[in-house]
């Protein structure tokens, strides 16, 4: 196999591509401006191989882009987890997540192309009630000192868009990344 230059032209009325070796005169077309020239090293100069190549390329395209889509989504999740764990540690030491920490966290997520849509920092004894003051360490009743932090994030870019090209569904507009964790407060009042 060597490098061969191909003329590709569209057969009138059809969408088929026909290839002619470069060293063979094109007998079906007088207008050379209609030709496109490709140098494809690994293909034999046989008719039909280009079509095989195109079909294979399309399949490979979807494999590559679907893999990249998944990779990108997991990377976003990883970043979201890293930021969350930092602020979960702060909540452990401070007994809750103060407004200043929440603002800093939102800024960090924004710099990673993610928009925080909700922050839930609660104690399981009072579900749904946001912690606005430090929880004290309590070894006699660990539940009383438990801080549950859940952060809901909307990435700037919706994932899984490759499927749109074949009529599939991308992630809905309600797609969110939700990360969180639970720690026991170590805060002791002075």
């Amino acid at each position, binding site marked *: 196999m060597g490098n061969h230059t191909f003329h590709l032209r569209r057969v009138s009325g059809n969408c088929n591509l026909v290839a002619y070796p470069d060293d063979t005169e094109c007998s079906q077309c007088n207008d050379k401006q209609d030709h496109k020239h490709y140098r494809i090293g690994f293909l034999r100069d046989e008719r039909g191989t280009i079509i095989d190549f195109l079909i294979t390329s399309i399949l490979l395209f979807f*494999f590559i882009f679907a893999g990249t889509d*998944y990779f990108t989504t997991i990377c976003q999740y990883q970043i979201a987890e890293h930021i969350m764990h930092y602020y979960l540690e702060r909540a452990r030491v401070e007994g809750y997540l103060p407004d200043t920490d929440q603002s800093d966290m939102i800024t960090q997520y924004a710099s990673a192309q993610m928009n925080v849509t909700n922050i839930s920092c609660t104690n399981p004894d009072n579900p749904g009630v946001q912690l606005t003051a430090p929880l004290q360490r309590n070894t006699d009743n660990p539940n009383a000192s438990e801080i549950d932090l859940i952060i809901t994030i909307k990435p700037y870019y919706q994932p899984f868009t490759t499927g749109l090209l074949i009529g599939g569904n991308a992630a809905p507009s309600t797609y969110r990344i939700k990360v969180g964790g*639970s720690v*026991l407060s*170590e805060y002791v009042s002075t």
Partner: protein
Amino acid sequence: MLMLIITASIEITDTVTVADIDVQENLASACKAAASQISDASQANATPRIKDANAVNAFESSLEYNLRLDNTMTPLPNTHYLNPPQFWLLIYNGDSDFASDGANLVDYYYFDGTNLNTESISAPSGFPAVFYASTTGVNTSGGAYQVTLNTPGVVAVIQIQKKNVLGDVPVVTQRWAAARIVWKSS
């Protein structure tokens, strides 16, 4: 070759997420929760020691919440994990001064995926105390990772199998973590 690269990129990314972020961070968090379970009597005496029963409960609760396991340590639906984890947890106080308040010199637990068992270990006494984290748990003789406790603390090793994204080769993650009490002496 291209398919191998795509498969590897997906599987490796997923494994890193599970092992280095989820399992590692949450094991560290569970160790801190366990180490913070100070016995009341020792705290009143300004020599904090870890109350073993509370520590192991806090350790398990933390893992259950953060790894999304039920109260039998079985992974909940739609989590990363295939089976309950196995873990080894060593709680070391350095002395038995507050054993009457539940803070023993040393306690060593092994959760085999079903039951929590108390194991024996030839522990030293006093500080600093050297332990090793290995693939078979925590010991004092040797292992891949050395941990020196200068104050009461815990050392833990966890092993858990993740769900595969592609293929059926078992991917088992092992991570270790340690935490100790730090306090102002005056």
